[in-house]
């Protein structure tokens, strides 16, 4: 058996041994979904480098080799939220909820949201709002071809649930802090469900942090439903320690004339793998998938996208940019998939990467799969160094080498970060990216969560 096969069977055993606990709060249909996911996981196994989408992402290296604990129930870690978390950014008022090791934190501060909006733990939601949850849970995530999504479906017991009813516009961004905190290495699964009904508008910010130097393997699954004419902005900031691995699986479903924009900013982490699936399933939908990753040391960051145009007259734009320093490696595997009926599709995809050292490596594979002629599509990728002519030009004005390099990297990164719509959020993230590029990023300014040790 290979190491990954061993891990697979360990995880299957872990599930079998603990099925009772894992499913104790489940309604029948969720229990059934877990079982289906288990079968998918058994059949698919953990992706090896033979898998096209993981050709350049060696999971074995990151997922095996150490012992990990698994929390079957929320850690009885008692602390005041205010003691561990101070993210009171004056310019950026957000409604905050903490998710600790995959479980909705029970001492979250009360949130102030418009009538009808629900923000709570997913486990709580399945109890309190079973019909609402059942309508969407598991409807967009495809576990039959994605074994890591299947794995998450088997184990995840909690995460966040956000419901924005029809016609409700939430002005204040909702900030979800996903924290890893443990005395032992820990495996974390979490599951999120975000529902924006017709004409709803919401901006959600995920901040993924590790609070200690322990190694975490996080495998998350997020389903997002964007109703007719709804607008969802989804910003995700990943800032974890170098011992930790994070795999995120995000499934977006879009109805007619909806607009979904994601900005994924991978600032730090041992392994970061983001799988983003978007299905444009109503006419006139717009999807923007933007991503920036900054990797150094021996970090590996990789992005997989699958933007599926299922209906006519939809627009999608993908922009993934990476800066790789030292011995970092990266991969991009992106797909635009246009159905036969999806006429008048406009779909674009671009991946640009900068290697700062000869030892950094990037593999990129943009792909178009188009089943009709009446489309406007383009894709492209570049891997290069900083422009020597530009560097010299800047230095010739009296700006030092490091600062010149910084200006160019900042400009490169800013193309992605500049697309964040909310100004206060954009400014703040620009500031974080700036400090990350200067190698100064340890903490999120006013928040003592993201400390790397």
């Amino acid at each position, binding site marked *: 058996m290979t190491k990954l096969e061993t891990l697979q069977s360990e995880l299957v055993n872990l599930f079998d041994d603990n099925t009772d606990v894992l499913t104790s709060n489940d309604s029948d249909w969720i229990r059934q979904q877990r079982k289906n996911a288990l079968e998918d996981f058994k059949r698919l196994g953990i992706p090896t480098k033979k898998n096209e989408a993981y050709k350049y992402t060696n999971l074995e290296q990151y997922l095996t080799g150490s012992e990990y604990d698994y929390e079957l129930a929320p850690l009885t870690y008692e602390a005041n939220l205010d003691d561990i978390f101070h993210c009171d950014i004056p310019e950026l008022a957000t409604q905050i909820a903490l998710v600790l090791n995959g479980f909705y934190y029970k001492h979250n501060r009360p949130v102030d949201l418009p009538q009808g909006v629900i923000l709570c733990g997913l486990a709580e939601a399945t109890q309190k709002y079973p019909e609402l949850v059942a309508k969407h849970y598991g409807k967009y995530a495809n576990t039959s071809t994605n074994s890591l999504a299947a794995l998450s479906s088997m184990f995840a017991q909690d995460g966040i649930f956000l419901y924005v009813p029809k016609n409700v516009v939430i002005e204040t961004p909702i900030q979800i802090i996903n924290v890893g905190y443990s005395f032992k290495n820990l495996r974390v699964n979490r599951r999120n469900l975000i529902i924006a009904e017709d004409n709803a508008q919401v901006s959600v910010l995920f901040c993924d942090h590790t609070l200690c130097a322990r190694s975490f393997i996080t495998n998350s699954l997020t389903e997002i439903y964007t109703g007719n004419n709804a607008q969802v902005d989804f910003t995700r900031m990943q800032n974890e320690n170098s011992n930790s691995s994070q795999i995120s699986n995000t499934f977006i479903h879009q109805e007619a004339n909806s607009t979904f924009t994601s900005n994924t900013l991978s600032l730090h982490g041992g392994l970061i793998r983001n799988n983003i699936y978007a299905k444009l399933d109503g006419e006139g939908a717009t999807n923007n998938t933007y991503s920036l990753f900054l990797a150094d040391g021996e970090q590996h960051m990789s992005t997989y996208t699958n933007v599926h145009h299922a209906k006519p007259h939809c627009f999608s734009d993908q922009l993934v940019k990476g800066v790789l320093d030292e011995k970092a490696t990266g991969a991009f595997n992106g797909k635009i998939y246009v159905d036969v009926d999806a006429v008048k599709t406009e779909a674009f995809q671009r991946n640009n990467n900068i290697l700062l050292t000869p030892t950094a490596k990037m593999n990129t594979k943009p792909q178009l799969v188009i089943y009709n002629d009446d489309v406007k599509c383009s894709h492209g990728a570049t891997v290069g160094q900083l*422009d*020597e*002519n*530009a560097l*010299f*030009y*800047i*230095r*010739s*004005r*009296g*700006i*030092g*080498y490091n*600062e*010149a390099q910084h*200006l*160019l990297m*900042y*400009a*490169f990164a*800013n*193309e992605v970060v500049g697309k964040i719509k909310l100004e206060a959020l954009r400014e703040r993230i620009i500031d974080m990216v700036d400090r990350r590029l200067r190698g100064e990023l340890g903490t999120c300014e006013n928040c003592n969560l993201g400390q790397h040790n």
Partner: protein
Amino acid sequence: MLKINNLHASIEGKEILKGISLEVKPGEVHAIMGPNGSGKSTLASVLAGRDLFDVTEGTVEFLDQDLLDMAPEDRARSGLFLGFQYPVEIPGVSMVNFMKTAVNEHRKHNNLDPLSASDFLKLMREKKEVVDITSNLTNRSVNEGFSGGEKKRNEIFQMAMLDPKMAILDETDSGLDIDALKIVAHGVNKLRTKENATIIITHYQRLLEYIVPDFVHILYKGKIVKSSGKELALELEEKGYDWIKEQ
């Protein structure tokens, strides 16, 4: 202020500058002319510190410092300015941010505090007038999408902002319409003082009507083959380079 002595430089083993000597004193304007490919831009680049070229022989002193031993940014901070023949486009870096960083680096070098935001904007406004540059150019990314003439004006604008002791202007006149040429020349003249010196690289006598040089040098195949007063430019205009080649 600038003493070039027997300067040789090559690229990929090919010698481009083959022993150049030139002295520029404060207050002087020198023009360097010469056919395409003779090494004018190479000389300018070597002086500004482009490491693409290897200096194989010779020395350059600038304000009593060993220029060749300095990083490009240190040369600039000491008061050397190069107006590029081909200014580089830098998408995503705003002119404002670029200039603010540059000005403050110069100030730091002179032990001055960084300019406040309002003082900086005031300085920008002042210097923009010198070259009659419109404000929307400074709101854009450095040179990105600028027309040929706009790029050249932008070089003079940067020169005005940085107030160098010695400016090397590499074909700042090419690509300029006659009005722009006057504006640029006017800008250069305005910045001219008894302490400053300028080297103008040009193909045309026309610019020298507006910026009157003290000396004209002809660079040919990596060597200065002739140096004289401003009348040399006229002679060149009349006779072309064949006259030089024949000698």
